[in-house]
């Protein structure tokens, strides 16, 4: 993947995430009904590993840290990334650097190591099992 498409992709994903979050905060105050965009859940009725991330971020915004972890721990990661990445993108755009892209390439190579990948895979899988048991 080249640098230009990386920056375009990450900007678009960040933007959509913020729009999605805003939409959810709006609908939270007006109704209790929540929209599910997860095709995996809609088709199989089994939650996917990322199901509950929005709920988790919303409870984090309300200050309920414990509830956020109990819903889906990946919400903490998502909230952190949503805080850091836009600022980093802005920094790169202002100073015409490619530090985020370089960091991405470095971390990708780090994750590709056998043991790190196995560890991450186990973490995601156990989180998924937990999600299914909780029936989000």
């Amino acid at each position, binding site marked *: 993947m080249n640098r230009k498409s990386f920056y375009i992709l990450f900007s678009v994903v960040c933007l959509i995430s913020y729009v999605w979050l805003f939409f959810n905060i709006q609908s939270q105050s007006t109704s209790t009904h929540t929209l599910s965009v997860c095709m995996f859940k809609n088709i199989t009725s089994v939650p*996917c590993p990322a199901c509950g991330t929005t709920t988790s971020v919303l409870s984090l915004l309300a200050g309920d840290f414990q509830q956020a972890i109990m819903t889906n721990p990946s919400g903490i990661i998502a909230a952190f990334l949503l805080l850091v990445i836009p600022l980093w993108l802005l920094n790169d755009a202002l100073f015409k650097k490619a530090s985020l892209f370089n960091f991405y390439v470095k971390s990708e190579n780090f994750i590709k190591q056998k043991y790190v990948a196995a560890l991450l895979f186990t973490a995601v899988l156990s989180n998924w099992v937990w999600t299914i048991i909780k029936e989000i």
Partner: protein
Amino acid sequence: MDANKVDMFIMSNGKFFEGHHLPQIRERLLQADESKWSMIQMAQYKDPTISLIVSVIAGQLGIDRFLIGDVGLGIAKLITCGGFGIWWIVDFFLIMGATKEKNIMKLQQVL
């Protein structure tokens, strides 16, 4: 390298690369040293059709991106639930090109 061998390689592996790259690949292979032949033959290329099937079935979890070696994008797709379902569908159209791109990078490493 022998023109016969190169043509044979292109005939059997043509589907792994973009059509517009094939003339360049042929040129590079003809210039390449004979000793690299076994390495080029041995390299494992990813099948674009397989990655498309994986993308349709398990694209929500980012498995297609993990398959072709884009680990970072795979994780991004996994934690955003297939990019809110949008990226999942967009990738139906992008994944074959991305796979071919990865294949050509692999061939360039060998050459």
